[in-house]
């Protein structure tokens, strides 16, 4: 019973991600790649993505601390981050990255910093879910990335895209 409910909830959440534009078709491709031989493929990939992007975000953060800003470096980081995000299907993150890069190109530190605010929040939320950064308010999401909860989800729903994935993309 509970499992069914959870599944339903998960499915709804997943759909909402797509609807809200957090995820795009690429994510579906990933889901399709998952099969019996690799039952946790999506989860593995997303975990990898988290790890990598946390590192990137950290670098970006550090780079943003500097004064004057090194746009090239920032642009590079962003490019990498964008690449990862597109591969995963994180649509919104990708859009944010693109915009960030625009700012970089314009060399508009002002704009960048402003932009950074909400962007950072988004990202931080996700990272926080992994316990790597402190939480921040999120306007778009009230979902609390609760690791335990997610794991429960995973165990219970074989083959469903991992809950982690869902949450993460809610950024």
């Amino acid at each position, binding site marked *: 019973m509970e499992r069914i409910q959870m599944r339903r909830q998960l499915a709804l959440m997943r759909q909402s991600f797509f609807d809200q534009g957090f995820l795009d078709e*690429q994510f579906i*491709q990933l889901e399709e*790649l998952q099969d019996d031989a690799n039952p946790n*493929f999506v989860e593995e990939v997303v975990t990898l993505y988290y790890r990598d992007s946390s590192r990137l975000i950290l670098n970006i953060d550090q780079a943003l601390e500097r004064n004057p800003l090194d746009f090239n470096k920032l642009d590079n980081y962003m*490019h990498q981050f964008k690449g990862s995000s*597109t591969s*995963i299907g994180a649509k919104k993150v990708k859009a944010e990255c693109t915009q960030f890069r625009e700012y970089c190109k314009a060399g508009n530190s002002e704009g960048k910093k402003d932009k950074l605010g909400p962007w950072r929040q988004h990202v931080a939320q996700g990272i926080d879910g992994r316990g790597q950064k402190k939480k921040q308010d999120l306007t778009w999401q009230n979902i609390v990335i609760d690791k335990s909860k997610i794991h429960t989800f995973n165990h219970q729903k074989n083959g469903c895209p991992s809950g982690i994935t869902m949450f993460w993309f809610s950024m």
Partner: protein
Amino acid sequence: MNQSNCKGSMSTASSSTNWKANDVVPDQFPAGLRVLVVDDDPTCLVILEKMLRTCLYEVTKCNRAEVALSMLRENKNGFDIVISDVHMPDMDGFKLLEHIGLEMDLPVIMMSADDGKQVVMKGVTHGACDYLIKPVRIEALKNIWQHVVRKKKNEWKDLEQSGSVEEGDRQQKLSEDVDYSSSANEGNWKNSKKRKDEEEETEDRDDTSTLKKPRVVWSVELHQQFVAAVNQLGIDKAVPKKILELMNVPGLTRENVASHLQKYRLYLRRLSGVSQHQGMNNSFMSPQDATFGAMSSLNGLDLQTLSVTGQLPAQSLATLQAAGLGRSTTKSSIPMPLVDQRNLFSFENPKLRFGEGQQQQMSSNKPMNLLHGIPTTMEPKQLASLHQSAQSIGSMNMQVNTHGGQGSSLLMQMAQPQSRGQILNESTSSHVPRLPSSIGQPIMTNGIAGGVIGRNGIGDNSRGTGYNQVPPSSSMLSFPMNHTTELAGNSFPLGSTPGISNVTSKGSFQEEGNSEMKGSAGFPPSYDIFNDLQQHQHKSHDWELQNVGLHFDASQNANPIQGNLDVSPSVLVHQGYSSSQRSGQNRNASAVGRAMFSGVECVEQGNMQNFSPHLNNLLVDNSVRVKAETIPDANCQTTLFTEHFGQDDLMSALLKQQQGGIGTAETDFDLDGYSMDNIPV
């Protein structure tokens, strides 16, 4: 990094290669296709791996370009296709692309989140067979096998043709459509070039590496012959069929020539384009000088010595280049011993000629004797001619002149024309070493250049490669200039810049070279080196050196070299010019360059040693000479040839330099030629 086996049905690696042997693809194909994926993004790497596995391919993933390259090198036939990201921290994706193209001739697919037109264009010019935009979908990956088949198909086609030719009929390969094959090769010039490199085309090239597959190897001598033929015909008129006839090489097919021609043209174009374009080039142009300087500094070549020896134009250049190249050889995947370098030069010279083709001067088929002991008198003329050609080269040549005053000026000028293409090479002092490489191929590390030079000087130059050597260096030199990276690729100097005349044509070439250098042209800017060499070396001696390009009459003196460099200077030289079809030449040049490399490699290693002392001299002289030759002025040429430069001395000097200086060149020779900067000037 991890060899993954496709699930189930994959045939083993060996089986997937079986199909290569014949036109029929195994039933399982494309299952079992061995793919190497290179990307620094772990997420993407994992996703791609999974997708490829789903397509039933055998996937190996790698997150570092260097590691990928070493894997490819260790196991030359271990992969069928490579997929690489564009932006990587340790090495630029395009650089990797070039390396792979030159060394292994595998199809490479680029991918990136960046879909800007410029980047995609860059992929095309560097020879990528496809460009995917991230996110990569599995549908896009399902079809990548087509690139493998296409490439093989072209290779086999060429092979078959060569096979028939081998009956002894090669010349009249009346290929029904010479043009067709040229254009057909256009897209696969790299492939065919590579193929050619491996294939042993003619008996002449005994030293060339043995065939693994039937590929034509464009050895230095062969290239010189090619360049000579092209020069003779005139760059614009050189068609594969005629070139083939002129070359009269058994076992060579028209297709081989056609693709080589394309490369050569590209190379020339690059040289001229590069020289003109880049500001760098200008700085490089001086590079010619610089290269010369570098060259001299490299191995302490004493231009003067060279000049004294006079005749060692080709040889010295070769040696110089070789020396320079030698250094880089280590770097390049192609282990080109000095000997090889010489070969390179030989090729280079012809190539250089191509460049000069523009100039027209060279087209006169005058043996590149320019360098040969041409008395100083020649210089002025040559200088003049050089100037003309040097237009594109500009400063480069001039710089060379600084060396010696008159002689140097001559050289410079000569170099300039050559340097156009070479300018690239010249940019870095290391150019010198690079020249050889650039000429032959990007691969041709400096060592090669040295080898080439050596050859030239040594006497092999009889083929006229001697001449080539000289110019190639210059061209090569210019090469470095442009791109820091691409020395190797751009150096098509061999063919394209017959030295001086090419300069003009090269201007355009150079530009291309710059961008392309990276990619693939693979004509080492060795030509430039020569030019530089020549210039530096001696003013008066230049003429002598020029002969180097023309004919490495080295045979006269530098017998030690013997063998590979057979200098048919005049032929080669002219070929270089005439074939400087710049537009298409670059490609050919690169092909030639490559061929040269291979040739050079084979070249008498033993000889190289002899050369070392002389090489230096040779190089110096050669470069000088080459320049002289490039100047179409007939007068120069004849006089130049008369002199014999102490080829032996030059060669040895060059060799010495190579050995010593090659170290610096090494960097250049990295295929990517980017290392030009590293070469200590």
